[in-house]
């Protein structure tokens, strides 16, 4: 082990953390996200709150929204929701955003 290596690893770690701080979310389980979104979001949105679906915004907007979760108006309802779950919800909303491609079916 030399200093060079240590420096490199250190730099790498810093880079990783910097990247993850700059954009905290992504790469979650969209499938689980869909379930969690239905469970945690659709309980209000579409019923007592404004209608909401992944197609409500473009991917960039979803990214911006999730930059700072604490600024989301209904953040208080999210208390106790693990980070992983929030990431899954983000992934779902992002992947099926308004500007995500819509596939067609044979039928």
């Amino acid at each position, binding site marked *: 082990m030399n200093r060079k290596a240590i420096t490199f690893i250190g730099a790498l770690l810093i880079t990783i953390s910097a990247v993850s701080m700059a954009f905290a979310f992504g790469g979650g*389980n969209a*499938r*689980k996200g869909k*379930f969690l979104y*239905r*469970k945690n979001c*659709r309980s209000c949105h579409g019923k007592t709150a404004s209608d909401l679906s992944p197609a409500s915004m*473009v991917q960039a907007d979803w990214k911006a929204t999730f930059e700072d979760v604490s600024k989301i108006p209904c953040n208080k309802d999210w208390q106790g929701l693990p980070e992983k779950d929030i990431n899954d919800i983000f992934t779902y909303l992002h992947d099926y955003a*308004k*500007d*995500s*491609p*819509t*596939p*067609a*079916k*044979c*039928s």
Partner: protein
Amino acid sequence: MQNQNKVKLSRRDFFKASGLAAAGISGGGLLGGLTPARAKGATPPPMWESRYSACDMCFNKCGLIARVEKGVVTKLDPNPKFLKSRGMLCARGNAGIAQVYDPDRLKHPLLRKGARGEGKWQRIPWDEAIDMAAQKMQEIRKKHSPCGHLFTAGADLQSQFVGRFAEVYGSYNVTSHESLCLLSGTRGFLDTFGEVPFADLLNSKYVIMAGANRFEALVTPDSIDLMTAMRENGLKLVVLDPRYTKTAALAHEWYPIRPGTDMIFMLALMHVIIDEKLFDRQWIEEKTYGIEQLSEHVKQYTPQYAAQECGVPAEDIARIARELAADAPRSMVYPGRRSSDYENSSQIRRSFALVNGLLGNWDKPGGLLAARAVGLKGVPYDPPWYDENPDDRIDAHAAPALFEHDGSFVLTREAVLKGEPYPIKGWFIYKTNPMVNAPNRKKTIQMMEQMDFVTVVDITMSDTAWMADLVLPSQSYLERQDPCSGLQGSVACACVIKRDPVIDPLYESRPVFNILKDIAGKLELGEYFDFNIPGYRKQQLRDLPDAEAAMDRDGVYYNPSKVYGIYEDRIYKTTSHKIELYNQRYEQMGLDPLPVYTPPQKIPESRFRLVVGRNAYFTHGSTCNNALLHELTPENVLWLNPDAAKILGVRDGETVEVSSSVGRGEIKAKVTEAIRKDTVFMYTGFGPLSKGLSLIQNSGASIAALLEDQHDAISGNAAMHETFVTVTRKVA
């Protein structure tokens, strides 16, 4: 509810206009005259009731009127008010009657008795069948997690219930017919325009049709609109096809292009259009992303280079490019439908999309149309979450751009056979026939063999049903009640249809909805199927208050939504929010952001490239055994060029043996100049294993047995034109 779809029209305007109505009656006056032997007199009208329905002989769902006499359908007629099909019903639509009353129909639940595929069956009661299906599903879920069960459904109005069932049961593993069909084209256009367009053929002036055969593989209204535009609007049609299809036969120009080289033809078109500045620069700059990169990219693809590769003369390529551009934006490269051809089919189809992008025809008359608003709503539900499940589909990441709801049949099968990353031991199949449609039948058989339990719901003993453990008889489209379906008929319409029974169900047949509902009940998933079809339809139609009445009156509801200019105030569903000539996502994924031409594999000496397709008289495996259609296509034959036949010593009508690396078949040769020398062609759907299809026993050869199972590298769609075969005279 049966009366809801009764037709209330009696006489058509035609008769009023032409005075024909009088003709029907006036003969009556003559009967009392002196010469009845020379005049027929009045014929009484048939004693039929007329009921609306929608055809199910292929995916088009053309509106029809069933004529019912004493509870029996005696005739199926087109619904003249159904704009999507331009008021027509094709041979298959008319032959629907032979499907409903097919003596080969499955009549009651059957349980496999002998070895798989041996054809020994035991009739069992429905209760027992449902119990058994539920019990096996439960066992598999317990042992292998819900993802250990695969669900596969074909194109049908009730297929959505199979998806719903799979989701509440907990399996991610759903494959559809699409990954054996149109996914590559979908990919190519989706990744350029953000959605899959409709072609406004009716208003177009110039159409290049490659990898599509619209006058035989009918798509409504495209097939009809194409002819109408050719005949009445002077549309020019250029067809690229290694085979002289009927589309080629009716086209203005037909080029028997070297298979697998469509991309370089398209790249050369773009070369000419960009080189000669034949495009609308302002529009391109405003609406598209990556014109610079594209310009740079296509520089290498000169017409001369393309001509060497694809066989279309360079001057013709250049001329066609100029003609195409001159008619822009009322010109197009037709997107096509089935694109399960080559390992680079997504990129081939993207090259089609790029030409269209360059022509600036998006969202304009005579060009490519965006999906119109139909207004039909989804019916939401909240499926449970199963923590024991693996992370993803079994075929996840096997191809970079799979579709979540379709997957890839070929890649799923590969994973199932390996048992990696996890085992799949149960399979539920509704109204699709992978044994006949999926390449490399041997592997499908192996896949079947390693399953603990396979349930097939179908109307006849298809090859897939033949290999199952439990076969359940489903109802034909004229016997059952279906959810509403939203359809877009290109420029013709955006509409909603529904299906109500026109006759009582035959035998012990049941709709798949009822079957799934019953199984769900046994699996304590009843709450997710706690509805009926009318209730479901009400939810679908909740934003369309007039739709139900319109469907009862006319058999169809039209949403008068916008046709052109939809994107005036809308963003494209792409990374750049523009038409992506240069695809940024592909770049991120390490894929070619612009289609790069790679020559197709050279056909080895004394072998042929096998291409497959169909005519207008059958829909693959589902109608080959239809008595009326069977008369038109009793078997498939191998199209063989006379020069090739001469070398092989094969005469027209002789039986030949066709062999590939995965299988063989015996088939009669049709020696014809309608096919290239290096290519052979056969229809899909024949050469069945099942003994339950009485008309097509020992008829022709199976494409599934011969085709190798390559796949499109991007979408995971099957690549069915990558197989080389040898053809030899069969020695008697």
